[in-house]
């Protein structure tokens, strides 16, 4: 829903690191809990990259599945559901998210 803003934020991070060099590839790591729609992000990127003067910059997304540590049963598990972060073993909602909230630019290729 807010992928256009996200792409602007990505471009801001990239420009800061790339300076005046041409940006060829932008790699972004996205956790499953980040509410990012990949196709929408890719589409918005095609608009923003032109606007931000990096027309050749390709966006590569790397996805990270969500994992929670349960305070109820003490187990760490990967979660399958898109809707809930509850522990898949004992259904407790008293969990700490271990992975899945990542949203960062990992690297850029420049020439």
């Amino acid at each position, binding site marked *: 829903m807010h992928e256009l*803003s996200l792409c602007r*934020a990505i471009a801001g*991070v990239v420009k800061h690191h790339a300076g005046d060099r041409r940006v060829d590839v932008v790699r972004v790591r996205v956790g499953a809990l980040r*509410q990012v729609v990949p196709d929408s992000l890719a589409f918005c*990127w095609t608009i923003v990259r032109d606007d931000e003067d990096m027309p050749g910059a390709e966006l590569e997304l790397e996805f990270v599945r969500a994992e929670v540590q349960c305070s109820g049963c003490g187990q760490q598990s990967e979660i399958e559901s898109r809707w809930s*972060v509850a522990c898949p073993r004992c259904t407790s909602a008293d969990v700490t998210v271990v992975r899945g909230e990542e*949203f*960062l*630019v990992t690297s850029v290729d420049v020439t």
Partner: protein
Amino acid sequence: MGRFHRHDDGTEHSHDHDHEHGHGHGHGDHTGYATGADRIEVLEAIFAENDNRAEINRKTFEINGIRALNLMSSPGSGKTTVLAATLDEIAAEFAVGIVEGDIATDLDAAKLEGRGAQISLLNTSNGFGGECHLDAPMVNRAIGGLDLPALDLVIVENVGNLVCPAEFDVGEHAKAMVYSVTEGEDKPLKYPVMFRSVDVVLLNKIDLLPHLDADVDTYIAQVRGVNPAATILPVSARTGAGMSEWFDWLRGFVRAR
């Protein structure tokens, strides 16, 4: 279109995934992209700039002795009605500033006029049809329109939306949401990021429960299912039922300065 690397197994650089693009390559060896290309390791959070600005807002509030609340909800949950009733109750006790996020109108701000609060309207229209959330730089601009040293409490009324506002720290000390019973009891499961992010949930429009298929316990259980720690307050901003508990929560919040 961007190339996608779907690491669906969850590991960061496993190789047992489908390459959706036509050329093979090893991770860490992207020489196929462009000769002479340098890879710059970045590892920078995309929200870092927002989070830095949010921290500046938070410090600005604290220097002025202000507690800030980020109020979120879906459109039509009764957020502005809750706020109007809240101002009528507490504006005599505390000096309140409202940052009013609205995509294109001043309709909400008009409803809050004359209730004893300072109001700073923030239209989020940006030429692309309007932002779906408030971010820290926007709130930073808006609080420039408030007389901060005079205030005790700032309530940021976010744009009505259950997805995007949950992602953006605006410099608040707590997050609250208005969740009305007419939205259906499945919403916490559908928008867990929002429901998990909040400290207090106002379960609004409980006067309409007799006309619905679920009772208040069902709604509470659904919120608890994703957020065991949140304070849940069943209220009707229209009839005033339960609102005194909300006012007390807010008093405690402001006094925690």
